């Protein structure tokens, strides 16, 4: 069966977890990442019949990034009340401390620059692809990347100082 829903179901199965990881890199919270990814997929479903096949991944990245930035612009309008605590993962591997410091520093970067850094380096997109995703020029991506890296570096070393104090 290859109807609209079945085709979307296959796309959802193949892409949801990856989208959630990108969202997590942007927002730093698994429950929020889940919500961002879910919202992005709901929006994609509503336009699924019109999305061009060859650009479906690019469209997903655009929707996901916009949902994240919209969330940041609006702020959290309401706190989500959950019956159970969301699943968490124990950080037991050797690199976890460094990753936590890196994640903490990344969250200190302004959302727009953070989105650029995540798309550029975590999602491993080219400057041109990031520009397409965000609907801006490659020059803007380069400048936002430079500013984002500077902010990340500052926040990371600030954390180092704090941790060492």
């Amino acid at each position, binding site marked *: 069966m*290859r109807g609209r829903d079945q085709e979307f179901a296959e796309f959802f199965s193949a892409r949801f977890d990856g989208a959630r990881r990108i969202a997590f890199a942007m927002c730093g919270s698994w429950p929020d990442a889940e919500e961002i990814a879910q919202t992005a997929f709901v929006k994609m479903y509503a336009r699924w019949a019109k999305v061009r096949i060859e650009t479906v991944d690019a469209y997903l990245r655009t929707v996901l990034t916009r949902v994240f930035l919209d969330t940041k612009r609006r702020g959290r309008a309401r706190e989500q009340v959950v019956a159970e605590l969301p699943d968490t993962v124990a950080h037991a591997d050797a690199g976890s401390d460094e990753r936590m410091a890196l994640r903490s520093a990344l969250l200190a970067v302004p959302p727009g620059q953070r989105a650029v850094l995540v798309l550029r380096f975590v999602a491993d997109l080219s400057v041109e692809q990031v520009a397409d995703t965000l609907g801006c020029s490659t020059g803007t991506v380069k400048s936002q990347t430079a500013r984002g890296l500077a902010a990340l570096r500052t926040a990371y070393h600030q954390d180092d100082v704090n941790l060492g104090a």
Partner: protein
Amino acid sequence: MFDDDSAARRALRTLNDEPAPPVSTSLDDVLRKGRRRVFVQRAVSVAGVVAVVAAIGAGAVLLRPGDQPDGVRVAESTTETTATANPPETTPDTPTSTSAPAGPAHVLPGWQQTTMPPDVVESGGYCQLRDTAEPPNPNSVFLAEGRVKPAFVDAVGETLGDVPTVAMSDWQVNSGKTGAPRGYVAVEVPMVGGNGQLQLEVDPYIGTPTEMADLALAAYGNCEPPARRVLDDGTVLQLYAADWFNPEQPHQALQIYQPEGVQLVVTSAGWSEADMVPIGGGGSTIEGGRGALPTTDAELAEIARALVQNMG
């Protein structure tokens, strides 16, 4: 650290190594919310059209002098002007619409009407997704572009009389949309106000043609049971009702299940490449459309039959 792009990339990519909690969002959650969103969009669109039509209608009634109520014709009665000075307007004929509303596909000669299983229900204008849950097998049959595309172009040309223009052709062993082999070709045919498209999608499947066709009863349209025809070689054709969810962009699907494990979906679409509008992310969407289909049920069925024959 982070002094250059490569150092930043190395550091930030370690974030992907972080273990993640299990996904809690189910497909059903997304489909339910997605359908609700589609329904709301559709309701808003219809309400807007109704409001505009109502406003135009009200304006027309108020501005037509011949239709003024008697109580308004005070000046006319004082000058004793006869009513023949203003002959009554003739109402133009109501234009007939070519965009027929959604309904069951007509049962063509040689075709049979299927019945929808009782467990299939309509939700938000679409059928509830049935649990087919059979992932495509990347090792199953995937027809070469050179065998399918010419057969399709010829089938459309033979049926509609003109050689169509190939608007797009894309054959991928691992499609980004399905994560499996997928071939796609779209040809354009002239319509009033622009072109329409006949699109063909090719995928492998596992199972028998009848099993797959049964599973796909609710795959397209507005939950009306499709019509079916079984060819002598066991190929199953399944013709769905046209989907008028967006009245500007109707489309109608016909599925073909071949015994060798190849599924072909022929879609008649009331839009063309010229209606594609770029959107963020390098993608594009469809704006506008013909408001009609480029083919009748019989023509779509004939294209499918000719396609099977041309593929040999």
